[in-house]
């Protein structure tokens, strides 16, 4: 046991860091070069933005938004679309959890072929190869689900099953399934090994180890990631409306395309409301459950 006085850290003078070292300057220079390159490439115009033409255009657009369309008929419809968007995000998230849970244990190397659970299994290479194959299959499936952007999934599914919230929900579920699968996988691969070791020493089967050693450890993180992705999904559900997946997004698209600015403002307010509600629900559920 080394005895170090706890105060030592505070008394010692901080190590002098050379802020103007060559490498720091190079990083800074590279950063500014990248910025200049992007500034030119994106036709960004500071002058246009601050008091020039673009500012005027944006201002006119904002002025046209007001007042919101608050006729009763339109409000009722907006309410319906809002709930539709909510339903899409809700079911999409549940589908995502189902997909992620189906694949996550297959795509965790510590459950499939390496580490503590498989130390004793060196003598049967074909079993190991089979398990590695399963692992690679699950992992690459998750990668494909995740890599294809949700809007592309939505286009494919609209093409397959027609317009409406159903393809939107599927697209959300499939893409988010890939994302959650990866997040869950990281949690499973980082579980504490002590409980697993203890269970194994008592002669528990692998399934028992999964249920009593691993799931209790990972469930809180799973829940918290799922709730977080739900918050993301309510926003993405709105984007998917653009390709015909129903809900608020589709109406916003129509309102923007047809220059119905008053309606657009109402829809944006509804969007703000539902996103805030979902954020709040998710935060309070997280506090409650964890």
């Amino acid at each position: 046991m080394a005895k170090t006085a706890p105060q030592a850290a505070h008394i010692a003078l901080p190590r002098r860091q050379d802020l103007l070292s060559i490498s720091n300057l190079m990083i800074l220079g590279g950063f500014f070069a990248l910025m200049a390159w992007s500034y030119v490439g994106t036709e960004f115009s500071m002058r246009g933005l601050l008091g020039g033409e673009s500012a005027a255009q944006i201002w006119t657009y904002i002025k046209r938004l007001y007042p919101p369309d608050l006729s009763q008929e339109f409000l009722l419809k907006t309410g319906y679309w809002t709930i539709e968007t909510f339903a899409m995000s809700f079911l999409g998230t549940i589908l995502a959890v189902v997909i992620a849970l189906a694949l996550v244990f297959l795509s965790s190397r510590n459950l499939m072929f390496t580490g503590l659970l498989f130390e004793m299994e060196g003598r049967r290479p074909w079993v190991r190869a089979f398990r590695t194959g399963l692992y690679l299959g699950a992992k690459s499936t998750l990668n494909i689900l995740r890599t294809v952007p949700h809007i592309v999934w939505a286009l494919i599914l609209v093409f397959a099953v027609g317009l409406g919230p159903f393809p939107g929900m599927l697209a959300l579920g499939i893409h988010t399934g890939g994302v959650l699968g990866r997040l869950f996988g990281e949690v499973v691969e980082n579980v504490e090994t002590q409980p697993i070791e203890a269970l194994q020493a008592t002669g528990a089967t692998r399934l028992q180890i999964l249920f009593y050693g691993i799931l209790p450890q990972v469930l809180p993180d799973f829940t918290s990631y799922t709730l977080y992705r739900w918050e993301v999904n309510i926003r993405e559900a709105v984007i998917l409306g653009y390709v015909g997946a129903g809900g608020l997004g589709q109406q916003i698209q129509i309102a923007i395309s047809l220059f119905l600015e008053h309606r657009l403002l109402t829809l944006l307010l509804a969007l703000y409301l539902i996103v805030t509600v979902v954020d709040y629900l998710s935060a309070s559920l997280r506090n409650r459950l964890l």
Partner: protein
Amino acid sequence: MPSYAPSAPASLALPRRHSSYFPVVFSVLFLLTFAGSYRLAQVQPLLLFDAEGRRNIWKFVAGMFPPDLSWSFLSLLGRPILETIQISIMGTVVAVAIGFPLGLLATSSLTFKGILNERELANSRPRVLLRKTSYLLARAALSLFRTIPEFIWAFMFVRAVGLGPFPGVLAIGIAYAGMLGKVYSEMLEHVNPGPLEALQATGASKLAIIVYGLMPQALPNVVSYTLYRWECAVRASAILGFVGAGGIGQQLEISMRMFDFSQVITLVAILFVMVAGVDALSARARRAILGRQRV
């Protein structure tokens, strides 16, 4: 982002049994919401398996192969790929430029709470009110910015300032300013107040406190989170092209609308490489920054 490395066993104590109605109420609400959503979203799983759906999906999958790797197509893509990166960088810069000042205003320990403001605000109600109003306004602006998705922002900016990468930059800038500002303010609120109070005791001005007390503590986290957001911005700017805001998304949309799936798969592959590259780059940079902090 939380890191998962608990060193102690998950729970040594026996689980406590406490009875409450919460699980029951929660389950009932969950089931009701599920049933309602199921009806409302017009879920028809069979649609996926009926003849037409199957044919469409098959047409899609068959159309993807072989991927279109012809030079005439690939040569079209160089500029949009670069443009996507440029939009993401410029968008993040704009987001920091908007988000950081708003984040400072939305930090309660800087504006009206705590020891830093005690003396200044001790006997001047109007000042307290002014500070509180600016705090609330900043919070409201940030929440408005981040609640509306960048995609919708881009859509509106395209209407307002015309097609091209410029509205894409503005959209990323506004939406990400909201997220950055909120997270910045949380990071600034959670710094160790000791150095700030010490600085104040020496008579340092507010600006000096921010520059010498606050920033050195918060900077590594701030930079690391900004880099993480840049990763997200690359992904986002890739789809902004759908509404005409430049970048590779525009090409993706054209190929989708023309049902040219062999081009779609090429584009998705390019997107994958791009995102993976940016992820790796940013992860390395973040490790370097956060690693240095610990030394």
